[in-house]
């Protein structure tokens, strides 16, 4: 039965069954071949218990605090006018919208089944909000799960700024976030993933843009033991624009996976993707970027570029940029490069008296800057530039 017809409890039940059947994907699952998750089957994942102390906000602006994946209204700020919050349970259409967009064999089915309460954040049509609304994910315990379900609905012609901060301590963090943009809505979005060193972060964002919509989204993935930041985006109405950018910084034996599936289902839409990764120590980076252009999506302009900088011998990079084109009047291209710091550039800096370490740092910074330059909202840009800066490079 299609999710749209079902009651909330039935949807949850269906998700439970789906996950039980599919289990955690292994290498043999094409979508997870570079990021197999079967090791997660070794244990049960009970839900996190709330009660963590909220940390200071990372960014100015009202914030909603999610402890172990669950919203803590007491710790959250009041929403500015224009935004409204209501439980997902009371919005069967919203729940169905989310459920319909999660593939049956995707591990997010577990989050759909087990998240205790979901939320719908609605932005009134025509509302225009400059200040960023923050979604701060904290808390959780190392042997527990922190699933969350959140649907953000942007009303027609609305404009907003949304930031996600993920710095929980949960063993398994599974934020599932839907972005449903109505005609002409414009959203600037950024996600900062800096989970604890023991966390496995499996984030899934599902976005749907209607006619004339505009979405610019940036993901900075730097924390967790294993992080998969997955975005599925559909350009469903003509003249829509989406910019998906990401920067992943791998250290130690981290595993960073950025997976995007961008579907052009309407004509005259434009999409841009710039995904950059810096891999040091024994880190592993994965980028899977599929662009799909449907037969009716004529005059599509879809561009994607992936660049990886490898800083150590033990690092590993896997890239799979995919194009699936069914329309002929399109301009689609993707490019991917993998390499290390240019010896010529290093030498040039050192020949000007700059010590090797500082020279490397300068070049890595320059590499990272190109990604950060994709963030068009100044508040978000400033914030993430500061974050990267304070991490230090080397």
């Amino acid at each position, binding site marked *: 039965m299609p999710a749209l017809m079902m009651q909330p409890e039935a949807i949850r039940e269906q998700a439970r069954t789906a996950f039980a059947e599919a289990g955690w994907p292994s290498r043999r699952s094409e979508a997870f071949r570079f990021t197999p998750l079967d090791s997660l089957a070794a244990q049960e994942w009970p839900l996190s218990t709330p009660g963590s102390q909220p940390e200071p906000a990372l960014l100015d602006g009202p914030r909603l605090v999610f402890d172990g994946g669950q919203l803590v209204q007491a710790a959250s700020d009041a929403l500015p006018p224009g935004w409204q919050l209501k439980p997902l349970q009371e919005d069967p259409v919203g729940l169905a919208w989310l459920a319909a967009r999660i593939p049956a064999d995707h591990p997010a089915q577990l989050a759909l089944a087990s998240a205790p309460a979901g939320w719908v954040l609605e932005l009134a049509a025509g509302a225009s909000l400059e200040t960023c609304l923050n979604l701060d994910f904290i808390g959780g315990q190392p042997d527990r799960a922190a699933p969350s379900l959140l649907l953000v609905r942007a009303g027609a012609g609305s404009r907003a700024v949304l930031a996600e901060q993920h710095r929980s301590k949960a063993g398994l963090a599974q934020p599932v976030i839907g972005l449903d943009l109505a005609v002409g809505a414009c959203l600037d979005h950024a996600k900062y993933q800096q989970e604890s060193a023991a966390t496995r972060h499996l984030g899934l964002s599902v976005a749907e843009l209607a006619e004339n919509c505009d979405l610019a989204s940036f993901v900075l993935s730097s924390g967790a033991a294993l992080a998969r930041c997955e975005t599925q985006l559909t350009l469903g109405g003509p003249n829509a624009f989406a910019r998906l950018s990401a920067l992943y910084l791998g250290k130690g034996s981290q595993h960073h996976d950025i997976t995007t599936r961008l579907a052009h289902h309407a004509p005259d839409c434009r999409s841009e993707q710039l995904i950059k990764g810096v891999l040091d120590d024994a880190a592993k980076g994965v980028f899977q970027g599929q662009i799909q252009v449907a037969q009716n999506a004529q005059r599509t302009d879809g561009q994607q570029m992936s660049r990886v900088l490898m800083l150590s011998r033990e690092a590993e990079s896997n890239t799979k940029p995919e194009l699936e084109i069914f329309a002929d009047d399109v301009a689609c291209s993707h*490019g991917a490069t993998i390499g290390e710091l240019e010896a010529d550039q290093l030498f040039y800096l050192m020949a000007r008296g700059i010590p090797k370490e500082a020279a490397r740092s300068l070049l890595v910074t320059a590499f990272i800057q190109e990604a950060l330059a994709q963030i068009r909202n100044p508040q978000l840009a400033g914030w993430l530039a500061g974050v990267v800066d304070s991490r230090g490079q080397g």
Partner: protein
Amino acid sequence: MSATVETIQAVEEATGKYKYGFVTDIESDLAPKGLNEDIIRFISAKKDEPDWMLDWRLKAYRYWLKMTPPDWAKLQIEPIDYQAIHYYAAPKQKKQLASLDEVDPQLLETYEKLGIPLNEQKMLAGVAVDAVFDSVSVATTFREELAEAGVIFCPISEAIRDYPDLIRKYMGSVVPVSDNYFAALNSAVFTDGSFVYIPKGVRCPMELSTYFRINEQNTGQFERTLIIAEDDSYVSYLEGCTAPQRDENQLHAAVVELVAMHDAEIKYSTVQNWYPGDENGKGGIYNFVTKRGACRGDRSRISWTQVETGSAITWKYPSCVLRGRDSVGEFYSVAVTNGAQQADTGTKMIHLGPGTRSTIISKGISAGRAQNTYRGLVEINKAAEGARNFTQCDSLLVGDQCGAHTVPYITSRNPSGRVEHEATTSRISEEQLFYCLQRGLDAEEAVSLIVNGFCREVMKELPMEFAVEAQKLIGISLEGSVG
């Protein structure tokens, strides 16, 4: 005349003649359908093979039994019934026709368009060849020249008998039996194929073509080819032909192994025009081929160049394993799909040694309702210090009913390795067509010109002999796609 199979014991008792413990009428031309150890013994006996070869086949067969066929999401394949295939058929004498007048006029029209000389047309169509053009004597002269240079070029079955050491050393060393489902099948039941051996320091004096293999008159279903180039040698090998290959054999599972030693170079070119099935794709050929080149020697080079049109379902990944220091792997490909054809092609470049380089240029052209997929793998492994890869995949869509897909996998485990990959999608613009039309070219000529321009980087890698035919082939395969 079909064969009957009796139990092993009964036969041995009764005749004591057959070493292999089975009875079939050894004179028969056709093994019964199906695959089992008896059939394999039958094939080996027919080919007069030594014991070690039969053992090798049986091992492969037992491996195959434990494997499952691969499943690729984008191909719609009817499940193949492996027990419904004849695994051995004696080389068929093509039905002899008295003259070209008896040949299907459409076939002749295609030959004309491809510019195939009249005598060759006769050969291809099975018309009795007249004294002016004696293919056997031409081939004999050819062989003499090769013998002088020390080059061995013969059917694989001959090589198994005459050069067992070379076969035992190299066969299965590049594509092991366990490599994939079709390689295992092929290893068990292969019946035809080429063996080429170029000794040290020898530059093979002419392009070797499958056309000149004597006594191999049909395109085998399960061909096995092995090419060995010793230090400092060179060979250019051409496979296939532009004339449409109509074949009752639906399944082709070939294995091609190339070995290049220090400073050696092997150039392997394929031009194939497979019968694509009817306009609904029914009846086409399944072409599952494992082609792999091992650059074993330092500074060795292996190039795969292919122009393929018309196959209903193609599954080929010519690959290079770049082990030797500074060795080079190249892949140049044009794949044209029209009608309801599906193609899933690509390459794998595995960089193992330092300084290794690979270049991939893939041009996919889809028209009609066809689906054309490029699937590539570039792997830079830990020891591949300073490795370099450059990949360019371009898709050209003709009309809005077809699809073009690019699925590259890029893995790097060494920071000094550099990978650059680019893929673009385009179509023939109305402006470009108009420009050509205004200069007097008709629509089909215009499409052919533009498409050949699109493929130019690949076409110029083809040996002259093939290039001209390949260009015409591309033009023909796109007939009816525009306008």
